[in-house]
């Protein structure tokens, strides 16, 4: 491990970068794959925030991440119904 940083910080950075690349270039190129890949950087960011010991930030981030997923699912369903 790199000295001076918590292991959560390093791991979170790796997960965040890899997940962002996976969101940018999804393998079957549709909205559903992109939405599932969007969960990976969310948990990477959660690991990153874990290394700062802020309980309230973690709670808020988890709740907002799920709410935004719900909104994205509704948007995708509306878009597919219109198309």
């Amino acid at each position, binding site marked *: 491990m790199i000295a001076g940083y918590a292991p959560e910080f390093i*791991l979170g950075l*790796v997960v965040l970068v890899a997940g962002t690349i996976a969101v940018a270039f999804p393998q079957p190129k549709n909205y*559903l794959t992109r939405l599932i890949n969007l*969960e*990976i950087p969310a948990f990477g960011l959660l*690991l990153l925030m874990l290394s700062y010991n802020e309980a309230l930030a973690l709670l808020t981030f988890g*709740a907002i991440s*799920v709410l935004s997923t719900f909104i994205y699912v509704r948007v995708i369903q509306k878009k597919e119904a219109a198309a």
Partner: protein
Amino acid sequence: MDEIIMAASAILILIGMISAIVNLDPFDKLISLSILISGIFPFIVDRGLLDVAIALALIAPLSTVFILMACQKRASS
């Protein structure tokens, strides 16, 4: 935290991340995402944030259920 447990959780996170990126089927991706979430919990509990662990354990499956709603719409149409 002990080195071996930390290494095991890190391996779980990395396995979940890689297989969630590589797999093509949506259900396989969701199962891999579940491995990734399982690997995060020992890190949270080790810091002593038990309230965050309880809330996240109850909130994180809802995200999977919302994504499954989209999967079902796609399969039936």
